């Protein structure tokens, strides 16, 4: 067996037994890709079935390239939000710029192939320690952001949401997750499977000429990473071409238009892991068909490529159609002549490369020679790994004492605000175009979630947030997964949007190690609990395993969640910066003694067991209160409480008033003892990360707000806004400009 293959001996035996012969070289590479963790989800698929996937807004749940959620109706048309969530972790660790850029390129294709227009992207990122300017970690952190901006900006899609965390356990394995959002009329969805009448239809490949780049990429992403192994990493190197992608997208939109005019249902799918083989096998198999492909019909970048490279290589910027033969010439004309693909990139084009067959075999021909002939269901659907796991037990918070730091409050604030998980992300996201296309309502930094009004003239809008806290995951993957959902939901609610659906990307270590697999099992269970509690189903997702280096350094369990929210009326959205002095500030949330996983504990250099618990009933009541208050126009601003706790949330709301040509607005927070009634200590009240929101209510609206809040527990009046540039906590006042200077500098040194 070739050295580069990751198939296990038992898998090889199973293939040979089923085929009744030794597999060919091409078949070996095909099974290697298709049975990789990346393509097959062999150790996670059965676990993921436990996640809730149905709900009132779900138009299309998991199973195709993207999920679809109903957003709103306008002029008699129902509009859906298409969402996909992927990872490009291994490639980004090896070639950060290209890895991250092709991550965006891939996720965008997942949206396009549903017949949708791509309207936004988001980028949850996790990096190692970046303090050393000459470190590989710094190189990765910079290259990834450059790659995302270079690709996203070039295709003209706004980046509206994201988050970033830094931790030594990402030193050897960064995480580059990408989310893309599309807009589609629900009557015009195209599916990623061959339609029922597709026997004999053409299989048409579109895009860049196939080369050797990305050969072995799927299996590369499904084994432990050695960033220094240049030979093994060849499969990681995929070459982005956003300018070609831009033309491909526009040409595809033109094909959508033609299909609508003719009322024809077809299949359309993006080429990702497993290349031509993976895509053509899946699109035909999921329609109940087989396929026959002629590899000599594939447009290649150089002559003499072996059949397995043409079949399985992961050259970027390619899509695949299943079309009735009478339609093929017109589709080829649109791509090749109207949009001149062959003149845009070397030998790029659309070409018919095969046929859908009723016979349930997957056949590849290299000229007259058959190089692959296997049962298609065996290739695409039969592999499953039942791996052992244990139930994880997390330590509870220590009982009954208020936390003491022995550090002055000004120093604590300084250290927490400068922490890389807290400080301003603006040096990073300012590289991204957040407003291109003119539909962005709230760009990054303006609120807890990005907001887009996707349909011109329509009042509704879509909110998007991505979240997942690795400090929490280190302590308790089960509860941390719930917090990932809770925070994503909370951020969407903070802008006045009702959460309607979720996606997840589950980034974990080696599933064949029982502790890592146990973390995955625990996290999926946690996601299910939170998803059900918030009545917000999962519609799409991805699993990225083997995020572990050769030296055994694995990432912390990293379930990362994206939440889509629906805004009925974009005029009612709520932003983060404080608006006026004299407002009353309320905390919607109940501080807890638990400080485990908090930034505070991190800056103090210690450890503390026990994550905050989630009171779902109270959280739901708070979300409902916030949404009703927003709809009634009672909220001047709102912000979720997460990294750094209430103290940071208040600072950030006040920071938003700086540099806007008006007088800054400060905060006077009442002594925490007054509003916690001694339930927790000051430190827990200020820096605890149990969640919740801060909302700003005009003095004139206090009565109405409190009427809405009647009977809701955990609503605390905590202070007022003031016309002085300070954040005052009880009797101590801290200069807002000083605080802002600390907060805005940490990442500015990394993203110069």
């Amino acid at each position, binding site marked *: 067996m070739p050295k580069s293959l990751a198939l296990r001996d038992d898998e090889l035996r199973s293939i040979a037994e089923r085929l009744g012969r030794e597999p060919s070289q091409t078949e070996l590479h095909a099974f290697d890709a298709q049975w990789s963790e990346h393509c097959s989800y062999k150790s996670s698929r059965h676990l993921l079935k436990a996640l809730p996937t149905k709900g009132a807004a779900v138009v299309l749940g998991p199973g195709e390239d993207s999920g679809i959620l109903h957003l709103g109706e306008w002029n008699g048309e129902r509009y859906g939000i298409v969402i996909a969530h992927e990872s490009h972790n291994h490639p980004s660790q090896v070639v950060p710029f*290209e890895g991250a850029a092709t991550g965006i390129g891939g996720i965008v294709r997942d949206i396009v192939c549903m017949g949708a227009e791509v309207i936004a992207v988001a980028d949850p990122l996790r990096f190692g320690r970046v303090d050393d300017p000459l470190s590989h970690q710094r190189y990765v952190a910079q290259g990834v952001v450059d790659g995302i901006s270079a690709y996203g900006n070039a295709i003209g899609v706004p980046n509206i949401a994201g988050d970033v965390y830094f931790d030594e356990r990402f030193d050897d394995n960064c995480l580059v997750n990408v989310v893309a959002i599309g807009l589609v009329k629900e009557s015009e969805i195209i599916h990623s499977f061959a339609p029922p009448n597709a026997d004999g239809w053409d299989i048409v490949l579109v895009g860049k000429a196939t080369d050797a780049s990305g050969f072995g990429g799927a299996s590369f992403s499904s084994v432990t990473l050695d960033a220094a192994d240049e030979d093994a990493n060849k499969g990681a190197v995929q070459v982005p071409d956003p*300018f070609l992608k831009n033309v491909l997208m526009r040409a595809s939109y033109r094909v959508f238009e033609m299909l609508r005019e003719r009322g024809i249902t077809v299949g359309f799918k993006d080429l990702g892991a497993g290349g031509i083989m993976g895509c053509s096998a899946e699109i035909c198999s999921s329609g109940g068909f087989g396929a026959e492909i002629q590899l000599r019909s594939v447009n290649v970048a150089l002559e003499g490529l072996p059949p397995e490279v043409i079949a399985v290589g992961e050259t970027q910027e390619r899509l695949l159609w299943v079309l009735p033969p009478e339609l093929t010439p017109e589709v080829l004309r649109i791509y090749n002549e109207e949009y001149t693909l062959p*003149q845009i*990139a070397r030998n790029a084009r659309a070409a018919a490369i095969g046929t859908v067959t009723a016979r349930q075999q997957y056949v590849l021909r290299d000229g007259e020679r058959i190089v692959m002939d296997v049962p298609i269901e065996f290739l695409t659907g039969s592999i499953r790994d039942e791996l052992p796991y244990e139930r994880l037990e997390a330590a509870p918070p220590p009982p009954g004492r208020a936390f003491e730091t022995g550090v002055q409050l000004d120093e604590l604030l300084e250290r927490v605000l400068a922490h890389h998980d807290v400080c301003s992300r603006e040096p990073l996201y300012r590289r991204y175009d957040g407003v291109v296309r003119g539909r962005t309502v709230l760009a990054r930094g303006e609120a807890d979630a990005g907001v887009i009004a996707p349909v011109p003239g329509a009042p509704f809008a879509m909110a998007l947030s991505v979240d997942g806290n690795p400090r929490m995951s280190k302590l308790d993957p089960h509860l941390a997964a719930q917090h990932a959902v809770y925070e994503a939901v909370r951020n969407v609610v903070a802008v006045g949007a009702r959460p309607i659906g979720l996606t997840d990307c589950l980034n974990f270590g080696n599933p064949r190690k029982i502790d890592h697999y146990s973390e995955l099992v625990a996290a999926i269970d946690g996601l299910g609990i939170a998803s059900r509690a918030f009545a917000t189903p999962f519609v799409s997702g991805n699993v990225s395993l083997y995020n572990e280096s050769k030296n055994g350094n694995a990432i912390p369990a990293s379930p990362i969640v994206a939440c889509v929210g629906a805004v009925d009326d974009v005029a009612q959205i709520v932003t983060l910066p404080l608006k006026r002095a004299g407002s009353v500030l309320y905390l919607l949330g109940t501080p807890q003694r638990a400080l485990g996983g908090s930034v505070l504990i991190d800056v103090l250099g210690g450890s503390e067991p026990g994550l905050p618990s989630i009171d779902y009933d109270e959280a739901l009541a708070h979300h409902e209160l916030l949404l009703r208050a927003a709809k009634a126009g009672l909220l001047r601003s709102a912000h979720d409480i997460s990294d750094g706790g209430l103290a940071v949330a208040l600072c950030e709301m006040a920071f938003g008033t700086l540099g806007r040509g008006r007088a800054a607005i400060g905060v006077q927070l009442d002594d925490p003892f007054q509003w916690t009634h001694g339930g927790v200590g000051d430190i827990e009240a200020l820096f605890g990360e149990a969640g919740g929101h801060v909302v700003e209510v005009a003095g004139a609206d206090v009565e109405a707000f409190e009427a809405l809040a009647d009977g809701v527990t955990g609503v605390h009046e905590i202070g007022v806004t003031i016309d002085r540039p300070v954040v005052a906590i009880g009797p101590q006042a801290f200069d807002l400009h000083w605080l802002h200077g600390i907060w805005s500098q940490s990442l500015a040194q990394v993203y110069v």
Partner: protein
Amino acid sequence: MAVGLKIPDNEAYTAQTALERLGIPLARVERSAIYVFQAPAPADELAARVTRNESVFNPNKHRLRVLDANAPRSGEVWIEEAGARWADADRYVGWRLFGEGDRPVDRATLEAAAERLLCNPAIERAHFPKNEEER
């Protein structure tokens, strides 16, 4: 030192396509980052300096060549970028053009390519091979 891509170079292909549309037919175009060090030092020492800097050289996508001379090769123009200088090295973008028979293009073709596309005279300066004998 010339640091080039060993993965497909879209930028080079775009330049080739654009030049062809501007009336300069080519067989292929190579692009590389050129570093000319001022202080004399053994080639392997200079190569080590370049390869240690990951933002300049990533072995997973780059290849390094030690040039015979501190001047463009036949068929190659070096474009000097304003402000793209290291403390002890001059930095250029090298474009090497190949024409019929995969031979380096002549000086006139090179000058035409620089003038029409590769060099923006407002902010860049083109350096050509010192003489045709270097071919």
